[in-house]
């Protein structure tokens, strides 16, 4: 029998996410991992523009708010100044895979020694449900009102695969925040990512398939099921890169 307490790497400020949004789960996993790794007072985080724009209110460490898509550049600037601190960015799919694609890819190519937690919810949550580069084919959003088609809106982007096509990243894994077992897996992945950073192995990213009950127009429980049933078909879970013992 286990016990569970809110992590001390989260502040007491109530999260600003909608009910049942798994952004919240991602937040607490990061907090728990940092706590377990004993990194209190050793972390700088970077918040993106997106529903997690207020991340700086929630993580109990030094934080910088980045311009939309530029979190990897901001994190790079920070990490170069404080190479011995743990630096992470937290980014949505619009932020990371659309406007900020060049920044994340080049941070990966540089092997920048940071950890990125990438929340793929296949939608622009913050701005009210527009299509994301990761939106599924067929998905109706406010800017793909007839459902996304390859012809009209192009193909969903696969970030783990894209980063894995290059040298630079040390660790890439895709997980989902849908149920207890998978949340535990996600936590292990996030922990490994941070451990790699602490060991100086370079760029690590964990892509979390995450829900947006509000803009998917589903209940939180349905939304989790939707990830399992549909999202994982396009975004298979697994480790895409792991340099293992190598630096």
């Amino acid at each position, binding site marked *: 029998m286990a016990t569970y307490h809110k992590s001390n790497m989260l502040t007491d400020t109530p999260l*600003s*996410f*909608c*009910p049942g949004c798994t952004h919240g789960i991602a937040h607490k996993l990061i907090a728990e991992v940092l706590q377990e790794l004993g990194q209190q007072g050793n972390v700088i985080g970077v918040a993106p523009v997106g*529903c997690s*724009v207020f991340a700086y209110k929630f993580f109990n460490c030094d934080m910088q708010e980045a311009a939309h898509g530029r979190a990897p550049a901001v994190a790079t600037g920070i990490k170069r100044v404080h190479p011995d601190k743990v630096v992470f960015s937290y980014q949505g799919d619009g932020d990371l895979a659309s406007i900020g694609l060049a920044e994340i890819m080049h941070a990966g190519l540089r092997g920048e020694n940071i950890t990125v937690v990438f929340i793929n919810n296949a939608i622009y949550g*913050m701005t009210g449900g527009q299509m994301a580069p990761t939106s599924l084919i067929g998905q109706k959003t406010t800017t793909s009102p007839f459902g996304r088609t390859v012809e009209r809106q192009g193909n969903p982007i696969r970030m783990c695969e894209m980063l894995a096509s290059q040298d630079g990243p040390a660790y890439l894994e895709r997980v989902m925040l849908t149920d207890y077992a998978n949340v535990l897996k996600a936590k292990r992945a996030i922990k490994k990512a941070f451990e790699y950073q602490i060991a100086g192995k370079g760029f690590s990213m964990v892509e979390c398939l995450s829900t947006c009950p*509000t803009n998917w127009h589903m209940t939180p429980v349905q939304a989790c099921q939707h990830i399992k049933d549909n999202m994982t078909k396009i975004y298979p879970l697994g480790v895409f890169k792991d340099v293992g013992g190598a630096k």
Partner: protein
Amino acid sequence: MEQGIICAGFGGQGVLSLGKMIVYVAMEKGLHVTWLPSYGPEMRGGTANCSVVASTEEVASPLVSTPDCLIAMNRPSLDKFINDVVSGGMVLINSSLIDIKVDRKDINVYYIPANDLALQHANERSSNIVMYGAYAKLNGNIGSMDEFEKILIKQFGKSADKDKIISAFHAGYEEIKV
């Protein structure tokens, strides 16, 4: 004549459409109207509100900073706006969710148990319709009961709950004793 209205409540209580329906009534009446919602992430889970202006002249400022009429669907909304209501103005309070009384003496306050009446006549989501009815009763200069009802039917004519919704409207209307 110019009336500035603020409708405010939780996101999901339908305050934006409540405001919009009032606008439609005023528009049909030939009045000049504007409708301005609060917008952006503020709406997420939190409170929502809209400013409505109905006027016999062109509307200059659509921003209602000192409402002639406040419709408060929950406690935070009441707290936020009550002091801005003009002296002599009116306040409609959803007393199902707001258990305090307003102590300003210079305004007319009406307590409507909107959630209770909605549940009774239609469903939880119709509390805004009850308030719409109450507002209709108090604002004959914006439109007659029929005119308010007409707009309601336009909005919900195709809904399966049409009759229930109209009944909720009337409940609100009747709740006000003038």
